[in-house]
């Protein structure tokens, strides 16, 4: 089974900044089609395609758009390019290979909700992508490809939490990137209190292809309930640490052994973490799961950003998870109690375990805290932070037990 390249079909064959190059391979036809449609029909078409958010939450894109009140005078289209999940770089790849598809996708969304202003929020770690996108926008505007639709590129400044859509909005507004409580949802009151659609790069980039080839075509690719392709990035103890675009019914085992070329240095597999650092660790017995949103959910994992971190048999799970808890301690915004204090104490306790100073009582406290963080935190960061801890205690408990005093 091989890759199925839709977004990345012309990777390295076209200049991603050039609208002319993109138009040569069929670009901006989708937008043309979208603009000829009634808004409602356009939203229905996207709904029918079954396209679900590629950022992590997996919400039906057309459905999200349908919540935007049509009569609001100002509306915004915001692209989330803050991919901060460790091990993830698929949005960078999509921009570096096919930036114009992202711009076209945003303009299609603009046509659907009646917005003429888009923002791309690019993470501060990618200043070169900011430059690329600014040039791409200029090229598209000069070619007249975007029509009245304008796109401004903003750069983040190193804050994982800004991948959360309301924190991202706060950051564009020039504030601390602290998530807002919901409701109101951005679709009703988002950027500068105007209705705002926030979608991920990959979600937007799918749209031109859906419009050109039709909703049925897209709905027929991959898993029925989470159709399309997904760009994955492989890291860790894997022979081919690179990116791939696969249909969503692709199996995890094939990702690792076929595309990934198996475990490095002939070692055996121990665990794989999918979806970035907030994802669950998956043991060997669950490798025959499809990567789509719901199949991953069924085994207590998440597709998330599509990052795939593979660990070989020699890896120390507790040490890796201790490092992961440090990540969340560093990236918590500090707004809500369960996350601000919880990520800090979780990190403290995991390091205690890792240093061989913890008792079984500590392990109980870890699980007690994990459950409350998951249920009581204000945003997805605090809710997801304990997942790597809980999933490894579930599947690799012996690794913890052997480190206890």
């Amino acid at each position, binding site marked *: 089974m091989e890759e199925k390249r839709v977004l990345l079909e012309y990777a390295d064959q076209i200049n991603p900044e050039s609208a002319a190059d993109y138009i040569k391979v069929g670009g901006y036809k989708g937008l043309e089609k979208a603009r000829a449609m009634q808004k409602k029909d356009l939203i229905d078409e996207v709904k029918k395609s079954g396209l679900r958010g590629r950022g992590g939450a997996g919400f039906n894109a057309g459905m999200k758009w349908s919540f935007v009140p049509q009569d609001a005078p100002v509306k915004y289209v915001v692209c989330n390019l803050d991919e*901060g999940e460790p*091990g993830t770089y698929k949005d960078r790849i999509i921009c570096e290979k096919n930036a114009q598809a992202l711009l076209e996708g945003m303009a299609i969304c603009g046509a659907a909700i009646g917005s003429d202003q888009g923002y791309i929020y690019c993470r501060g770690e990618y200043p070169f992508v900011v430059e690329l996108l600014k040039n791409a926008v200029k090229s598209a505007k000069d070619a007249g490809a975007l029509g009245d639709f304008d796109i401004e590129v903003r750069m983040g400044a*190193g804050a994982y939490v800004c991948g959360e859509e309301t924190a991202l909005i706060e950051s564009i507004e020039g504030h*601390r990137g602290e998530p807002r409580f919901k409701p109101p949802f951005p679709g009703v009151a988002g950027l500068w209190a105007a209705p705002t659609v926030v979608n991920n790069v990959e979600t937007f980039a799918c749209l031109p292809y859906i419009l050109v080839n039709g909703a049925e075509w897209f709905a027929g690719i991959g898993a029925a309930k989470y159709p399309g392709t997904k760009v994955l*990035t492989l890291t860790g103890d894997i022979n081919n*640490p690179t990116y791939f675009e696969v249909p969503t019914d692709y199996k995890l085992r094939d990702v690792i052994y076929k595309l990934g070329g198996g475990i490095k240095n002939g070692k055996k597999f121990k665990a794989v973490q999918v979806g970035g650092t907030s994802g669950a660790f998956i043991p060997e017995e669950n490798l025959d799961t499809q990567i789509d949103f719901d199949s991953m959910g069924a085994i207590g994992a998440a597709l998330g950003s599509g990052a795939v971190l593979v660990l070989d048999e020699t890896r120390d799970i507790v040490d890796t998870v201790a490092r*992961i808890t440090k*990540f969340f301690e560093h990236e918590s915004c500090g707004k809500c109690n369960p996350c601000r204090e919880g990520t800090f104490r979780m990190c403290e306790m995991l390091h205690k375990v890792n240093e061989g100073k913890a008792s079984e009582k500590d392990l109980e406290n870890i699980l007690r805290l994990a459950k409350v963080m998951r249920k009581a935190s204000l945003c997805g960061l605090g809710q997801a932070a304990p997942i790597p801890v809980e999933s490894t205690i579930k599947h690799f408990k012996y690794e913890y037990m052997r480190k206890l005093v």
Partner: protein
Amino acid sequence: MANYMDLIASQKNTKGGIIEAFHAIQKEYNYIPREALTAAAKAFGMSEAKAYGVATFYSYLSVEKRGKYIIRMCESAPCHVAGADEVIKAIEKYLGIKTGETTADGKYTLELTECIGQCQATPVITVNSEPIFNVSPEKIPEILSAYK
């Protein structure tokens, strides 16, 4: 060196653009000097306390003076399992400073960072945001000596 007032003025029409102004200031000064922060706060109609809150929220913004070259070591999980800890030690040893510090000659600042999205070639460091791939403790002297 561009005047910070001009840098702030260049972003004046960017709605809510104080972070863009901070980026512009940092590009020239490598950090946000106090008077520049005060001026930016004023330009964007924000209290100084709030602007300071924004500047200290983001990892890549700094209100403290930093070196000419800001070296960041990624220590997120993929780089961690690829040996980031050993690389950090090698950098600290080479520069004679601890993480978070700046060398006495004001040339290098060493910071830790979370994932910078270059995981195809771990471990990764950046020097002034430019990524350097597949680093190892042995390669550190050669890599850093290129930045004078």
